[in-house]
C-alpha cells in the first residue's frame, strides 16, 4: 500500500523560449534526455532552423528598446535575475544532479551563476566609463568615443556546463544592450529552460533573451549565417565547427567571438572585456565655435 500513498510528482515539459513565450519547437521534434542509467529525464525540444529564425525576429524587435534602457535599469534587471535564481536554487541544483553532477559541484555551480549575474549587474553602469574616451583632436572639435551594443548576438553555449557557462555568456552580452538567441548545452539542457523561466520572472523584456534546445550539428550553420545577426559567440566545438562558423559569419561581416575551453567557474572568466566583445565604438565629432 506504501506505493499507492506516495504522491506522483508532476513532471515538467521542457520547452523553448522565444519572444518571452514558451512554445514547443515548430518542427514538432524532440530528443530524449537520459540519465546515466538510460532512463528518460525529459523529452527536450529539438529546435529547428525555423525556431532560430523566429527567435532572430523577436531579438531584433526587442533590441532597440533594450539598448535604449538606461544602464541603471540594465543593472537592476540583471540583479533581479540573480534574486529570482537565488530563490529557485534548489530546483537548479536538482536539475544539475539529474544530469550527472555531484551535489556539492551542483550547489557551487548555481551559487557561482548567481554571483556572476551580480558581477555583471554591477558592470552595467561602469564599463562605459572604462572603455569610452574623449579624444584630444588637433582641430577645434569636441570628439568623443562611446560603446554601443553590436545588436543581435547568437550564442552557442558551452556543452560541458549546464548553467554557469550559459549564464556567463548571456549576462555579458545583454548587460551591454544586445539581445540574443542562445543554443543551450546539448548534454545538459535542463537548466537553460528553467533559466528562461527565471528570466521571464525578472522583468527582462520579451525577446531580449531567446533560448533554444537542440543539436549543435544541426543549428550551428544557422547561428553563424543568419544575415540579421550581428555577432556570434561560440563556446568550444572542434576546429571544423570553428571553420564553418567563421566562413558563414563572413557573409555579413559578423563579429566572431570564440570562447574555447574556458573554465566558467573561475572568477577570471568574467570581466568587462567580455562585455566589450559585443560592443561597437562610436566616435562623434562636433565643432567648437559660436
Amino acid at each position: 500500500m506504501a506505493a499507492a500513498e506516495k504522491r506522483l510528482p508532476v513532471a515538467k515539459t521542457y520547452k523553448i523560449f522565444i519572444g518571452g513565450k514558451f512554445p514547443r519547437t515548430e518542427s514538432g521534434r524532440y530528443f530524449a534526455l537520459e540519465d546515466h542509467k538510460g532512463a528518460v529525464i525529459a523529452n527536450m525540444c529539438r529546435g529547428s532552423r525555423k525556431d532560430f529564425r523566429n527567435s532572430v525576429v523577436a531579438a531584433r524587435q526587442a533590441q532597440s528598446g533594450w539598448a535604449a534602457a538606461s544602464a541603471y535599469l540594465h543593472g537592476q534587471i540583471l540583479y533581479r535575475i540573480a534574486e529570482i535564481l537565488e530563490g529557485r536554487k534548489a530546483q537548479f541544483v536538482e536539475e544539475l544532479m539529474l544530469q550527472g553532477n555531484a551535489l556539492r559541484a551542483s550547489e557551487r555551480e548555481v551559487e557561482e551563476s548567481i554571483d556572476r549575474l551580480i558581477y555583471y549587474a554591477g558592470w552595467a553602469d561602469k564599463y562605459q566609463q572604462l572603455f569610452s574616451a574623449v579624444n584630444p583632436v588637433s582641430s577645434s572639435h569636441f570628439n568623443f568615443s562611446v560603446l554601443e551594443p553590436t545588436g543581435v548576438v547568437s550564442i552557442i553555449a558551452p556543452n560541458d556546463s549546464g548553467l554557469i557557462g550559459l549564464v556567463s555568456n548571456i549576462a555579458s552580452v545583454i548587460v551591454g544592450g544586445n539581445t540574443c538567441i542562445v543554443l543551450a548545452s546539448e548534454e545538459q539542457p535542463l537548466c537553460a529552460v528553467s533559466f528562461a523561466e527565471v528570466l521571464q520572472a525578472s522583468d527582462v523584456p520579451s525577446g531580449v533573451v531567446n533560448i533554444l534546445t537542440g543539436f549543435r550539428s544541426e543549428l550551428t550553420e544557422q547561428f553563424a549565417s543568419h544575415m540579421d545577426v550581428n555577432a556570434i559567440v561560440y563556446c568550444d566545438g572542434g576546429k571544423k565547427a570553428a571553420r564553418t562558423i567563421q566562413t558563414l559569419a563572413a557573409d555579413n561581416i559578423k563579429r566572431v567571438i570564440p570562447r574555447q575551453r574556458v573554465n566558467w567557474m573561475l572568477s577570471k572568466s568574467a570581466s568587462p572585456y567580455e562585455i566589450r566583445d559585443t560592443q561597437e565604438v562610436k566616435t562623434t565629432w562636433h565643432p567648437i565655435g559660436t
Partner: protein
Amino acid sequence: MAIPENKLAFDGGWDYAPAPESTDHIVVKKRYGLFINGDFRAPEKGRYFDTLNPANEEKLSRVAMASQADVDKAVKAARKAYTGPWSRMKAKERGKYIFRIARMIQERAREFAVIESLDGGKPIRESRDVDVPLAAAHFFYYAGWADKLEYAFPGRKAKALGVAGQVIPWNFPLLMASWKIAPALACGNTVVLKPAETTPLTALKLAEVIADAGLPDGVVNIVTGAGDTGAAIVTHPGVDKVAFTGSTNVGRIIQKALAGTNKKYTLELGGKAANIIFADAAIDQAVEGIVNGIFFNQGHVCCAGSRLLVQESVADEVIEKLKDRMETLIVGDPLDKNTDIGAINSHMQLEKIESYLKIGQSEGGEMHQSSCSVPKSGYWCRPTIFTGVSQSSRVVQEEIFGPVLAIQTFRTYDEALTKANNTPYGLSGGVWTDKGSKIFKMTQGIRAGVIWANTFNKFDPTSPFGGYKESGMGREGGLHGLGAYVKLEA
C-alpha cells in the same frame, strides 16, 4: 554664362591663373624593387608593373610585382625581426624609432605630398594639408603609446601579436600606410605591408624613411603587387594578424580565407554614409559640408557622405545652393593649388563610376553635373548629383567611390533615421542642425562608427575610426586602435 540677378556670381568672369606645385625637387626612380629586410631588392620572378599618373596617363615608374616567394621572404624577415631585436627592445626605444619616422615624414612633407598627388590624382591642397600631416601625426601619436601600453588596458597585460600582414587601398596611400604601420610597431609587432597597385610610390618613399630612420632590418617590409600579392600576405601561415582596408567584397573574402586559422583580423570596409540636413541647420555651412562630404578626394572615401538626406521644407533651397556651389568647383590638374577635384584614381575606377552614372539614370534618377571643363587626357569625373532616386536605387544602396551624390528627402527625424540606417553599411554619418538635443538624438540613432555633427570628413590620430555592420570590424586610431595589435592576458 548668364547669371540670374538674384544669384551671387561665384564664378563671374574670374579665371584662375595656373598655380602648379613645383615637381623639380622630386626624385622618382625609374624602377622600384621590394623593400624586404631593410633594403630594396629585385622580385624573384623579375616582374614589374607600371604606375601611372592618372591626370595624364603618363608612366611615373615601374614597380616590382611580388610573388608568393617574395612574400615568403618578407614574412620571414618580419618574423626574424620580431623574435630578434624588435620584441626584445625596450618599449621606450621602440617608441623613439617611431617618433623618428614621424619627424622624417614632416621633414620630407612636400616631397610626399607631390608624389601622392602625382601617383594618385588627389589635389595637392589635400595631400599637402590633410594626407601627409595626418600621416606624420599618426606616427607621432602612436610612438608615444609604445611604453605606455600597461595603462591602455586596465587589469590586463597587452602582448604583441607577432607579424602583421597589412593590405591598404589607393585612396589615401601614405595615410593608410601610417594608420596600419604606426600602431602595429607601437605594440611591438613587425609588418609586411602591401600598398595598392595603382598608388605604390609613397609607400616606397616611406620605406626609404624607415631605412633612414635606422629601424632594425625586417621590422617593416613593403611589398608591391596586385590582388595575388595581397592574398599571399593574408593567407600566409607566418602572419599572425591581418589588417585590411578596402571593399566589403574583398573584406568578406578575407574573413572567409581566415576561417579556421587563429589569425586576428581587423577590416575597414565600404560605406554609404547618410549626410542628414535638418531645416534648422545653418544652410550655407551645411552646403559646404555636403561638398566636403562627397567631393573630398574625388569621393574616393569610404566614409564619404554619398547619400544626402535633406528635410523636405528646405530641399529646394539646399539643392539649388549645392548646384551653385558645384559650379565653382575646379576640376583638373591635381598639382594645381587651386584645384578642388583631382583625377579619378584609375581607368578602372572611372569606368565603375561611369557605369553608376548610367545605372542612376536608367533607374529614373535625374542627374545633374557641373558644367566645368575637364582636361583631355587623364581620368576625370565632374561633380555629380542624383535627385528623384528611391531607397532601393542602386546609386542609393551601393558604394560608388566617386564624386556622385544621391539626394533624398525626409519629413520627420524618424524617417531620416530609418532611411539613414537602411543599408548594410555603417561606417559614418553626418547630421546638420542647430539644435543640440536633436544632434544627440540623431548621432545616437545612426548605426555607424563615426558621426560628424555640423562637420564632415574630419580625421585625427587620436580619434578612433571604423565601422558597424558590413563596414568592417575593429578600430584604427586613438586608444581603441591599439586593441587591433595586441592580445590581452589576465
